[in-house]
């Protein structure tokens, strides 16, 4: 399969790109922030997403979705990134769908159609500290009555305070088990925190939360494989979104180089800036190719996907970070003002870079997967 978008994918991009740019440009984010929006995204916009069938892109057709792949979801995420659009798409339509579709069973039958129809928002409760360490999950689920009792603390749970369910990873006797925990469960507290990029992520406490046995996603103790599917999808999605963030910042910056005059010249005439912009272009192109490769391998169900997902998260992280740093510097003083948009890109990049493992985490993973 060639590593570029086929005709159907190009058509998808042609319809999604103008839609996101018109309905949810950076001014949309600014408006939500300035109104101290308590949801973290616009439900009206999510309804529009639903009208286009986007929330169920990855949902298998038998559950009411479009049965598309990560390459297609990546097209949407790149536009979300380019426009800094606040949206539950990544956690709900990518991460949660990957987990539920992998697990099958009761929870998949219940929530996949609800995601596809735009009714359900799902949060991913994985992290437990300031850094992403999914191999050291300490939250516990102990058998109680007909079901389980959950105890522990989760952090960096995007949309955790509004999601209909959270997918929670917890330790059980013989391994990891994933649970679908409804938001009104007794003993569950979601404490939303405003992050640097104006998004809302919750600290979620599980204090003896009781759930039925059928809240288990997949099988008891066999959650690692489902968690891996969730992580691979979400990391790849975050990487695609970062490519959008980086590209948006780069385009803005290159345009600025063609408009801003100093010393009687357009600053884009200075070789000192030209070479840095050209270097950035190369890094962004490599990041884009890498993310596409990870998407392709995931869609093929290839064994090589895991390595490439970490490579993609790390590479997109590096490239987008360079794009926003160079963007801010090349804009000069105006880039430091809240009024100008480039700072929003820097903030969003920082939050996405941390989500589901930062550059350092994934570089370390690449070393491990190569046996050192």
């Amino acid at each position, binding site marked *: 399969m060639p590593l570029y978008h086929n005709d159907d994918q190009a058509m998808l991009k042609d319809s999604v790109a103008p839609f996101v740019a018109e309905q949810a440009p950076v001014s949309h984010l600014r408006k939500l922030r300035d109104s101290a929006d308590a949801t973290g995204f616009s439900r009206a916009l999510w309804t529009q997403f639903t009208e286009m069938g986007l929330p169920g892109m990855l949902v298998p057709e038998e559950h009411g979705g479009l049965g598309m792949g990560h390459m297609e979801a990546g097209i949407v995420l790149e536009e979300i990134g380019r426009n800094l659009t606040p949206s539950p798409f990544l956690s709900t339509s990518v991460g949660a769908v990957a987990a539920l579709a992998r697990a099958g069973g009761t929870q998949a039958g219940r929530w996949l159609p609800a995601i596809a129809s735009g009714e359900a928002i799902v949060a991913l409760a994985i992290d437990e500290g300031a850094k992403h360490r999914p191999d050291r999950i300490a939250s516990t689920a102990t058998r109680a009555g007909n079901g389980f009792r959950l105890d522990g603390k989760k952090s960096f749970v995007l949309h955790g305070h509004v999601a209909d369910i959270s997918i929670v990873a917890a330790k059980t006797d013989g391994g990891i088990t994933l649970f679908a925990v409804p938001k009104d469960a007794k003993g569950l507290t979601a404490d939303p925190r405003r992050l640097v990029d104006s998004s809302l992520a919750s600290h979620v406490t599980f204090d003896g939360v009781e759930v039925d046995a059928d809240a288990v996603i997949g099988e008891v103790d066999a959650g690692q494989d489902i968690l891996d599917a969730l992580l691979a999808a979400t990391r790849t999605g975050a990487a695609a979104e970062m490519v959008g963030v980086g590209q948006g910042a780069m385009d803005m910056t290159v345009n600025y180089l063609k408009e801003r005059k100093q010393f009687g010249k357009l600053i884009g005439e200075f070789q000192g800036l030209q*070479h840095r912009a050209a270097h950035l272009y190369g890094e962004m192109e*490599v990041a884009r190719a890498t993310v596409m490769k990870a998407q392709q391998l995931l869609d093929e169900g290839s064994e090589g996907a895991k390595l490439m997902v970490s490579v993609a998260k790390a590479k997109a992280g590096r490239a987008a970070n360079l794009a926003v740093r160079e963007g801010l510097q090349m804009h000069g003083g105006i880039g430091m003002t809240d009024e100008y948009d480039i700072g929003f890109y820097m903030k969003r990049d920082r939050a996405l870079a941390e989500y589901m493992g930062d550059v350092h985490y994934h*570089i370390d993973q*690449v070393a491990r997967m190569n046996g050192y």
Partner: protein
Amino acid sequence: MSELDAFRTEVREWLEANCPAEMREPVRDEGDVCWGGRDWVFKNDAQKQWLEACVAKGYTVPDWPKPYGGAGLTPEQTKVLKQEMKRIHARSPLDSFGIWMLGPALLQFGTEEQKVEYLNPIARGEIRWCQGYSEPGSGSDLVSLQTFGEDKGDHWVVNGSKIWTSYADKADWIFCLVRTDKANKYQGITFMLFDMASKGVTTRPILLISGNSPFCETFFDDVEVPKTQFIGEINRGWDVAKYLLGHEREMISGGGAGGDMVSIGGAFAKAFGKNAAGELDDPILRAEMAAFDVDVFAYRAMGERFMDMWKTGRAHPASSNMMKYVGTELNKRRHELVMSGGGSEALEWDSEETKGGARARGWLRTKANSIEGGTSEVMLNVIAKRILDLPGA
């Protein structure tokens, strides 16, 4: 089964039957690379047999049309062939500047007669070509070249000198940029072809910091070149040269630097030892190697995407400059890490254990990657101007 799957099966069977076991071993030294040419001495029967099998099938130049010695494969089929060769670690049957550079220029600009006359011997490995571009006074500013061909009616008389001519001392013919109009900088250069055995051609190898001499200075002293031996139009050789430089950058970026790189940390873990946690026993070097590996795997994906797009006309025409820049800088970084990983052993210059200082010499050789075929700085200039459309670039 799709047509492409059927082709894959066919290729797999053909390779199994025709690629000798010795030709599936890694390339160990320069003699393992088959360059062909009038004076070529095969290292062993397997090398000869492998070349002949590929020549008969058109697989030395699989995507060239059949009348010119190729197999007439589509880009998709060519990719399958390369994948299948890679799968069994098959060596390239024939490496040559004729395949990588002159061939594409002839296919684009040559007359039908020229294509038949020059491409077939390239495909068969009979004529080895070298490239006469740079001059002592014309490096990055190539178009300032001074080697001059004086018009003598039915022939030119060429005088001047070229530098950095790869393997000029081993080549049979040269494709050479020669000024034919001193008044017109860009439209005063002709892309000539001539025999290195012509009277008045001499070569002198240049000793490099690596201690090796892959490049030569080449001198032309009243060399007569028939006025039929040029590509494109007289005085319009710069168009051909520019086209060809794109291919050179494609070659350097696609195959030469990074395309086939494997995990550097993985390789060193075997040689270096690991700590109790199973990690490379030097945490900072491990981190640098892992960060480098990320860039290697990322660049491999870029190489795949670039080739997929390039072969189907989807790539930006200047994107080979980006590939060349990223790939060569990556390769230089790799060799810095190879030296760090190798420690004092890697410093040895001529010991038998180090295969004659292979690491040290290889490391020094890579420093030219970002100079030859257009410096990194020139690549960045081109990206700024042609891709980013920055002003005044």
